[in-house]
């Protein structure tokens, strides 16, 4: 890293079906809160980055044009980032790169999706010749990958149910989460409708409206309980290659390794206090734990089974409730990165993990092709790497 970079402001909207607000108004909610948190006005911002999933999801093409005014971006450089579900993570890193490269001092990173105004599963189900016309959406793609993980790792069936319960119980502590089910039980998840074998209804993310915004600044402007970026990386791999291992994608592995190297981390499970991971289906908790080196290959599910990833475990995953409790896809990745920042700033409210000093924000997109990860900390990184 050539310059130290910090997150000094975070804002987010309530995740829900938000038919009472326009897209612009919903985006503005997060922008206003992030700017207030950072104690900045629009005149202080040098550049704006917008994160959004495919335009087909809610039908506005090149939404950075329509949202220029809502984002306070008139007169500024605006860049729209676009990498599927991971897009919010990529946008945060792109904003941090602008600061690191000396092209900006303070960058506003904005993300949203308003899925109630479109049809997500239709937009995701590409026609022939790419896939059979099943309208199976994202779950149809990920189910066989999950089945393969279960086969390889011999994980018992209840792991997926337990993850679903953990995340939903965490979400009760987060007023912004879409899904609040304080009474959820493993039995209830087990008995819920099968959607895409082995994914059951309660093991799936909802389709949400929501927005998120963060302010990223250079070291000299980081005055307000900053979250310092210790390491960040993104990696991409092809979606169509017979030799690729989608259960443990190489791009995800190398992305995490690069970020840990920058952060000086050699034993991530021991050196990280909390992680916000992109887990849209419950089984992706053990899958990502292994992929990003928080667990050995084949043993991610044991961390779940031993309760270590629950709120009071030693490696809590998604204390915010995660993607399983709210999934405005364009904002979901940025929410993970922002939640990690809130944890190390000590500002996560009811879902604050005591003493969190170092946290991971993680995002995945496409058919597990796009990976982004950052490690943030409460302390200024020692060396500029």
């Amino acid at each position, binding site marked *: 890293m050539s310059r130290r970079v910090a997150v000094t402001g975070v804002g987010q909207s309530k995740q829900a079906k938000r038919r009472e607000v326009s*897209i*612009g108004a919903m985006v503005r909610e997060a922008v206003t809160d992030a700017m207030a948190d950072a104690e900045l006005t629009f005149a202080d911002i040098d550049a704006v980055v917008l994160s959004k999933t495919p335009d087909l999801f809610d*039908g*506005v093409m*090149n939404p950075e*044009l*329509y949202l*220029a005014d809502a984002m306070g971006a*008139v007169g500024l450089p605006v860049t729209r980032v676009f990498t599927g579900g991971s897009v919010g993570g990529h946008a945060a890193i792109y904003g941090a790169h602008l600061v690191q490269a000396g092209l900006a001092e303070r960058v506003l990173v904005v993300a949203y999706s308003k899925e109630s105004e479109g049809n997500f599963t239709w937009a995701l189900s590409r026609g022939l010749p790419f896939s059979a016309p099943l309208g199976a959406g994202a779950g149809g793609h990920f189910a066989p990958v999950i089945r393969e993980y279960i086969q390889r790792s011999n994980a018992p069936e209840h792991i997926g149910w337990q993850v679903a319960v953990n995340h939903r119980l965490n979400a009760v502590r987060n007023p912004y989460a879409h899904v609040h089910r304080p009474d959820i039980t493993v039995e209830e998840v087990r008995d819920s409708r099968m959607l895409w074998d082995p994914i059951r209804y309660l093991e799936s993310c909802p389709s949400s409206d929501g927005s998120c915004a963060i302010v990223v600044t250079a070291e000299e402007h980081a005055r307000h309980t900053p979250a310092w970026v210790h390491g960040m990386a993104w990696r991409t791999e092809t979606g169509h290659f017979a030799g690729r291992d989608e259960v443990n994608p190489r791009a995800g592995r190398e992305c995490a390794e690069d970020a840990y190297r920058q952060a000086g981390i050699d034993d991530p499970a021991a050196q990280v206090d909390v992680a916000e991971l992109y887990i849209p289906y419950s089984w992706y908790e053990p899958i990502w734990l292994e992929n990003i080196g928080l667990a050995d290959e084949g043993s991610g599910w044991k961390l779940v089974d031993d309760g270590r990833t629950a709120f009071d475990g030693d490696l809590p995953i998604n204390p915010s409730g995660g993607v399983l409790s709210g999934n405005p896809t364009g904002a979901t990745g940025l929410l993970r990165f922002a939640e990690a920042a809130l944890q190390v700033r000590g500002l996560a409210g009811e879902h604050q993990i005591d003493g969190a000093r170092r946290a991971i924000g993680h995002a995945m997109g496409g058919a597990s092709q796009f990976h982004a990860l950052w490690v943030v900390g409460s302390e200024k990184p020692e060396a500029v790497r």
Partner: protein
Amino acid sequence: MPAQLDPYFLTPLSPHRDAIAGLQARVAIEAGLTSEQGMAEVVARCLDAATDNPLAQRSGQVDVARLLDAPYVTSPLREHDVAPVGDAAAVVILAADDVARRLAQRPAWLRGLDHRMDTHYPGARDLTTSPSTRRAASKSGELAGFSTSDVDIVELHTEYSHQEAILANALGLNGAAINPSGGPLAGRPVTATGLIRIGEAARRISDGSADRALAHATSGQALQQNLVCLLEGDG
């Protein structure tokens, strides 16, 4: 109909694809920036220049008077005033210092680049000016150490013929050759059009026909978002 408009207040008006550009052309003419004759002359010049560009979608010697006989698409725009949409791809390779010198005899050095956004709402803008272009020009000039008026050639992302006059004003052009490749009025592969401008400007540096070049790219209705890139050759 442009789907990149405010989905609540503008999209329901279902404007014709070229309607907002037509409004812009009308106010540009009323402000004395151009005329229907002037716009047709821009098109004739671009199509003529494109005869030297084997990659152009459209080219040829055309008669301005005959162009003016054509019917309107959205008045005052005629079919030739609208850049023809087509298919194409573009690739540009960026390289640092020593690598660039190793790879190219005469690299086109990226001296300054900036991009800016205007408000989305056409009704809230003075469509005869392009403040975002002006701002990007000034910032990129600051980075480059030379001004946008001090270049030999420019490649402008003109989706409509009348926009050349608006952009030339905002950039303060001073005798530079405009769109020697023929520009978008000779071929507009929508999202590749901006990168092609940078590639064409770089090509003029590399082949020695220019020492300083400017490439411009735009996005949105009536020039809402604009990018200015200043290139220079040495030796």
